[in-house]
C-alpha cells in the first residue's frame, strides 16, 4: 500500500497494516479536529453558511496538484508512474448522484460518518447503518447492476486530455478557479445569517 517504500523493501511488508492504521487514525483525527464530524458543518456548504468543506477539498486538490507538477519537473518523482483510477462514465454519473443525495440528506460522506461514529454521534450511527445496508443491497443485486457498473470504461482518463488542453494550463486555470471560489465563498458567508452549532 505505501509505495514505493514497501514494494522496494525499505520497510518490511509486515508493517503495511500498521502504517495503514496509523495513517487512517491520523486522517480521522484531522477530520474530527477540522469539525468534519459535524453534519451541520458539512451541510453548511449546501445552505451557504459554512464553506469549509469546499475550502478543504480544493486546497487539498490544488496543493497535491502543484506538488506533483513541480516534483515531476524537478525530477524528484515520476508522475507517469502514478496510478490513475479507471473512469467508468455511467457508473461515475449514477454513483455521483446517489452519493450526492445521501450527502445532502444525511449530512455525512462515508469518511466523516465513521468519524462521527467514533465520537458517538447518533445521526452518524444511523448513517453508517444505512451505508452498510446499501452495500448489502448492492452486493445482493450485483448481477442487475453489472452492466452499469463495469460499462463504458475509458481507462485512466485525464481531464486536460479530454479538453485538449496542456496539463499546466489546466492546472493554472484550476488554481485561479479555486482562489476565485474561496473569495466568493467568503463573500457568501458574510451575506448569509450565521448559524450557531
Amino acid at each position, binding site marked *: 500500500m505505501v509505495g514505493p517504500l514497501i514494494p522496494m523493501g525499505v520497510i518490511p511488508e509486515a508493517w503495511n497494516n500498521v502504517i495503514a492504521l496509523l495513517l487512517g487514525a491520523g486522517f480521522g483525527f484531522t477530520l474530527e479536529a477540522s469539525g468534519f464530524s459535524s453534519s451541520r458543518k458539512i451541510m453548511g456548504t449546501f445552505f451557504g453558511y459554512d464553506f469549509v468543506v469546499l475550502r478543504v477539498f480544493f486546497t487539498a486538490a490544488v496543493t497535491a496538484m502543484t506538488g506533483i507538477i513541480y516534483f515531476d*519537473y524537478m525530477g524528484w518523482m515520476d508522475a*507517469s508512474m502514478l496510478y490513475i483510477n479507471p473512469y467508468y462514465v455511467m457508473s461515475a454519473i449514477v454513483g455521483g448522484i446517489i452519493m450526492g443525495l445521501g450527502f445532502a440528506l444525511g449530512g455525512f460522506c462515508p469518511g466523516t460518518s465513521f468519524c462521527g461514529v467514533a465520537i458517538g454521534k447518533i445521526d452518524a450511527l444511523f448513517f453508517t447503518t444505512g451505508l452498510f445496508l446499501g452495500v448489502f443491497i448492492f452486493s445482493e443485486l450485483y448481477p442487475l447492476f453489472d452492466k452499469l457498473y463495469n460499462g463504458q470504461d475509458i481507462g485512466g482518463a485525464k481531464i486536460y486530455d479530454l479538453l485538449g488542453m496542456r496539463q*499546466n494550463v489546466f492546472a493554472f486555470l484550476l*488554481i485561479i478557479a479555486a*482562489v476565485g471560489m474561496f473569495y466568493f465563498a467568503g463573500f457568501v458567508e458574510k451575506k448569509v445569517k450565521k448559524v450557531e452549532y
Partner: protein
Amino acid sequence: MNKRYLFLAAIVILLGVGMLFMPNSNDNKQVSPELLLSAIDDPSRFLTTDDITDRLVKKDPALLLLDVRPAEAFKSFSIPGSVNLPADSLLTASAMEMLKQDAKDKVFCSNSDVTADQAWIICKRLGLNRIYVMQGGINQWFNTIVKAAKPAESASSKTIELYQFRVAACQHFYGSPEMATASKAEVKKTVTVVKKASGAASGGGC
C-alpha cells in the same frame, strides 16, 4: 479580508504562473527498470563473430549489422556488409527508422563490445525489439576470421571445420588474408635528407 489568506492565495497563484512557463512534461516512453535489468543480465543478446560471418556470407536479408564507431574509423576499416551508424547519431529520426524495422535483427558492433553494448542499452530502453551485440566487436572478428589461428593437427574435427569455415569466409570477403591486412597496412614515409649545398648561404659575407 485576512492578510494571511491573501498571502497564501498570492503564493499559489504565483506557483500557477510558474507552471505556465514549464516545458511540457516529456512523455518519453521507456521500458521499466526491472525489465531492463533482467535484459542486461541475459547474455542472449550477444552473437558470436562466427554466427554473424555465417549470416553475412549467406547474405541473410534479416541481418542488419550496424557499426557504431565514428565515420572515420568506419572508412579506414569495416566489416564488409556492415552499415555505419555512429553512436552519437543513434537517436536521429533516420536512425530510428532503421532501428524500428521489426523484420530485421539489428546487430551492433564497435571495436570491442563496449560502445555497441551502450547503443544496445539505449535501444532496449526505448523498447526496440530484435537488437543484438556482436561479442568481442570488430577486433574479435579480425582475430577470428581474418587472422584465423590454425589449429593443431590433433584438434577435433569440429575445431578444424570451424577453422576451414573461417578461412573460406575470409576468402569470400577479401580473396586472401593478405588483402584484408593490406588495406590496413600503413604506407611507410620515406624521409629523404636534403643536404645543404655548402657555401650557398654565405655568399658575400664578411
